[in-house]
């Protein structure tokens, strides 16, 4: 039953994802991708449980390595996306901004 429930979640979120992302304008496609990189760092949740759990040393080390890689995505992804998005300025505000 658990599997069916998870499949339901998967199905709904794929549809929702398509709806949401097809509305993102072409101008923002690069930040969308780096933002998606950050979100895919959500595997960190699984990695944390393995890294801190008591399923043996190997499981902990694999988990810790996964925590590191996922954290690169999370930190790097959100920061670079923010850096990019702050560059997008409307015409009137264009001059005041400057490079960040």
């Amino acid at each position, binding site marked *: 039953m*658990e599997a069916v429930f*998870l499949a339901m979640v*998967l199905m709904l*979120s*794929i549809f929702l*994802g*398509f709806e*949401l*992302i*097809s509305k*993102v304008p*072409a*101008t*923002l*496609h*690069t*930040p969308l*991708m780096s933002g*998606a990189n*950050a*979100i*895919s760092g*959500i*595997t*960190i*949740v*699984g*990695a*944390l*449980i*393995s890294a*801190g*759990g*008591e*399923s043996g040393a*190997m*499981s902990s080390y694999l*988990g*810790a*390595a*996964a*925590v*590191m*890689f*996922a*954290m*690169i995505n*999370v*930190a*790097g*992804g*959100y920061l*670079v996306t*923010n*850096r*990019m*998005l702050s*560059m997008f300025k409307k*015409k009137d505000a*264009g001059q005041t901004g400057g490079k960040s």
Partner: protein
Amino acid sequence: MSAVMINLWYVVAAALFIFGLKQLGSPATAVRGNVLSSLAMVIAIAVTLLNKEILTFELILVAALIGAVIGAIAAQKVEMTSMPEMVALFNGSGGIASLMVGWAALYNMGNTTFTDVTILLSIVIGGMTFSGSILAWGKLSEVMTSAAVVFGAQRIVNAGILVGLVVCSVLFCLNPSVDSPYLYAVIALSLLFGVMAVLPIGGADMPVVISLLNSYSGLAACAAGFAINNNILIVAGSMVGAAGIILTNIMCKAMNRSLGHVLFSGFGAVKQATKVEGEVKPIVAEDAFLILEAAQSVSFVPGYGMAVAQAQHVVRELGELLEKNGAEVTYAIHPVAGRMPGHMNVLLAEANVPYDQLVEMEDINPRIDNVDVAVVIGANDVVNPSARNDENSPIYGMPIINVDQARTVFVLKRSMGSGFSGVDNPLFFGDNTRMLFGDAKQSIAAVVAEFKG
């Protein structure tokens, strides 16, 4: 915190992820969207740390700190021209993380067959995403040749790897154990498959591959979610998967090619375009300035060459001068200009071009005949009229920006090679085309100097 509470917080995080993505729908709200999304991630991580299964924190702390420092430095240092490489590496690290989460989940007690299958899926997808992304990075950063690498028995070899992968996976699931030799075989084969899958894809097709790998990194997270029975991984992973697939689809459409065609045939080996011959009409900066000064509407059409020449800042300067001169200035951007979706937009935004001046292909084409001067900077295929007229052209049928229908076209190009030799782009010989030879940055700077002088 009890499992129920943790899952309730995951629901909150999922809602914030969704809301964050929704706000990415407009440049005005996008910064806030990104903040919401990162807040969702913080919540998800924080409540997970309260999970009773987590007993030791030292390893986690060290690993998370190393990862955060690497990520933060990379995010600060990366040049906007190198964003495709950066995204490729991020795709890869997402993939390897999912592979390891899947692998570690094998050590859990009492996995059902269904769980074993999903564990294997997260290992396979994660593995091929990782190695494929590293190879894509190598091609993009030109550590290796960016051309398509094709050899005779490629398809047979790939089919062999795929069959091996399926056989080993089945054998593993029949008798799952952490020291099963089939586990190592599956990991090795999926890494190999990622390499083989990206090898035959050429530089110009990179936007498709990066988008696709982006999608895979999400799907790998999704599979890992099934492996450890975790909702938030499935929700967030499938969002990423959907984003990647949509972008892949947009890229393929913009090149008039099917995904299968991009993945399985090396580009360029297809057809030979009809060579066109004619005389090019070169122009010097002085004359270009006179024409631009009289123009009422000017549209810049950038391509990857603009990024290579680092010309975006001086282009923006010229754009501002033209606006002061009373002209309407737009930047027309083809979906596959650059090496990743939206690459040109980011470069121009970095150079302080306001986003309301960035227009898409569908918006500029209907009014292109009212454009006095179209300035093509480092773009070639995306403005090549043989995509419309020449059935023999390898890019026939690809939607292009119809700059040849503007009143005047300036093409900035390094050189022409030998004067009368045939080229694949009839635009260069058009009656209304003027060639501005030389480095794009220097050429534009020369025109800017004329304006100021």
